C-alpha cells in the first residue's frame, strides 16, 4: 500500500477518519459472571479482547505469597486466528513475555495492593482479533475487568497508540498504519498527565515527541470517559435489578 494513501491531502485516513479520531470503541463489563470474579470485553475498531480476573484468592504456590501486598499475575493468550494470517504462537515468545511484564508493572501501580496481602490476583487476557493497538486494548480491558471484580484501585489506566506520518500525528492506529509508521503507545492514569507506560519501538524525531505525547494523552482521557460511562451504566443496571 503506497504510503501516501495512509493520510490523504484532504486529511482523511484509509478508514475515513481524521487525524485525531478514535476508532469505534465498545466495551462491556461483567461478561463472564459465572466463571470469573471480574470480566470485560473490549473492542477497539476490529481488535477484540476478552479479559477475566480471578481474585483476590489463595495463591496456587506458597512461594508466590507476599506478606505485604497482593501478588499480581497476568497471562496473555493470543488466538491463532487473531491476525489475518493464521499463526500459531508460543506462550514464551519474547514479545509476549515483554507485554506480560509491562502489564504487570503497569497494573501494580493502580491497584491498592497493600489492601490484599498474601493473596493472588490472576488476570487472564484472551485476544480474539488483532487489528492494531494490541497493548492499548489489553490495558483497557484489564482496567475494566479489575473494576468489575471490585478490586480497589486508585484510578483508571487508559491506553492508546499514536503514530507519526511525516509531520502529522495520527491517533489510534490500525494494523496497516502500524506496519508503515513509527508509533508509540502510552498508558495514562485517570485524567492526569502522568504516564505509567510509554512504549516506542521505532524511530521518531525528538522534536515531534511532544506533539505525539499530548495527542496520546488527550485520546486516553477520552477513552477513560467512555470506559467510565460503561461502568456507570452497568452500575445503574445492577441497582435497578436489586430494587
Amino acid at each position, binding site marked *: 500500500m503506497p504510503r501516501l494513501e495512509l493520510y490523504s491531502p484532504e486529511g482523511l485516513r484509509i478508514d475515513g477518519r481524521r487525524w485525531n479520531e478514535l476508532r469505534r470503541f465498545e466495551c462491556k463489563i461483567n461478561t463472564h459472571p459465572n466463571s470469573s470474579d471480574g470480566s470485560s470485553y473490549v473492542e477497539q475498531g476490529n481488535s477484540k479482547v476478552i479479559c477475566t480476573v480471578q481474585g483476590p484468592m489463595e495463591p496456587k504456590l506458597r512461594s508466590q505469597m507476599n506478606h505485604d501486598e497482593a501478588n499480581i499475575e497476568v497471562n496473555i493468550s493470543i488466538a491463532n486466528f487473531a491476525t489475518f494470517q493464521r499463526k500459531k504462537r508460543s506462550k514464551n515468545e519474547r514479545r509476549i513475555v515483554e507485554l506480560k511484564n509491562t502489564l504487570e508493572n503497569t497494573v501494580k501501580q493502580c491497584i491498592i495492593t497493600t489492601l490484599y496481602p498474601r493473596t493472588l490476583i490472576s488476570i487472564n487476557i484472551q485476544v480474539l482479533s488483532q487489528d492494531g493497538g494490541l497493548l492499548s486494548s489489553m490495558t483497557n480491558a484489564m482496567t475494566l475487568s479489575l473494576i468489575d471484580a471490585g478490586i480497589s484501585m486508585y484510578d483508571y489506566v487508559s491506553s492508546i497508540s499514536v503514530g507519526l506520518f511525516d509531520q502529522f500525528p495520527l491517533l489510534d492506529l490500525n494494523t496497516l498504519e502500524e506496519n508503515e509508521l513509527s508509533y508509540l503507545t502510552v498508558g495514562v492514569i485517570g485524567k*492526569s498527565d502522568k504516564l505509567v507506560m*510509554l512504549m516506542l*519501538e521505532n*524511530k521518531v524525531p525528538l522534536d515531534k515527541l511532544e506533539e505525539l505525547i*499530548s495527542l496520546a494523552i488527550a485520546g486516553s482521557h477520552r477513552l477513560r470517559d467512555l470506559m467510565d460511562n460503561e461502568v456507570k451504566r452497568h452500575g445503574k443496571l445492577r441497582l435497578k435489578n436489586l430494587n
Partner: protein
Amino acid sequence: MSYHKEFIKNGERLNGRKLSELRVPEVDIGQNGELTISAGDTKIFIKISSEISKPYDDKPNEGILIINNDIDNDILSRIVEKSIRKSNALDLESLVISTGKICWIIKIDLNILNFDGNLIDYCILGIMINLLLYKLPNYDIVDNSIKLYNLDEKAPISLSILHIPICFTISFYNPSTIEMNLKSDEVFEISLFDADKQEEDLRDSYMVITLNSNKEIIQLSKLGGIPINSVEVLKLCEICYDKAKEMTQWIKDVVKKEEEKTSDRVKMLAAVDQR
C-alpha cells in the same frame, strides 16, 4: 537502606556524582573484535566475530546479525535488539557479497564480567564502539567460491555503520507516598542517570531511552512503574539528547585514537618489510 533513599530524596548520591552525571567509561581494546568496557565496577566483555554464510531465504539481500548474551535477561536482550538491530545501526545490506548466495554473519557475544548497575547502557556503548572498530577480512571471488585474505595481507574492510545509538537508563524515585504521587500535581519524582547496583535496588521504576546525534529517538521504554509527568519525560529527553551528542563525540575520539595506533603499527611493519 532507608538512609540511602533519604540521600537521594535530597538530591545527593552516595557515590558523589550529581543526579544527572554519568560514570566515565574506560575502554580496553584487544584483538580485532575484542573489547572490554568498564564503568565504575560494571565490566562487560564484548566479542565480535564474523563468518561467511548464506542469507536467509526471505531476505536475500541482507546479511545476518546475531546478538547473544550470556545472562538470561529478557529486558537487556529486548532493548539491545530494538536499539541496534531494529534501528538498522549496522547496515545489513552492506554485508551481502552475492545476493541470495553469499553474505557475512556478524555475531556479537556479550559477557557480563561484573555487575554494578546499568548494564544496558554500557552494553550498547561497548557494542557500538566495537562495531566501529571491527574489521572484516578482505576477499576475492574466485569462480563461485570465496577466498579470504588475512588482515595484514590485504587492507581489511570496516563495517558500514549508519548511525550511533546511545542508550540512557533513567531511574525514578518517589519522594512521597503512592497516593500523593498519583493524585497531586505538585509531586515530582526524582530522576537519576546511570544508577549503580545499590541505587538500582532502591529505585521505584525506570525508563530506557535510546537516541542518536541526529536528534532521532530510536526507542523509548517505560514499561510500568510509578507514573511520571509527561513534562518531565520531555525534559529528560532533551537532557539525554545533549548527553548523546557528547557521547557520540567521545566515541568518535576513541575510535580515531585506536585507528591511529593501528595505522602507526602498520606503517612500522611496512618499514620493517622494506628493509
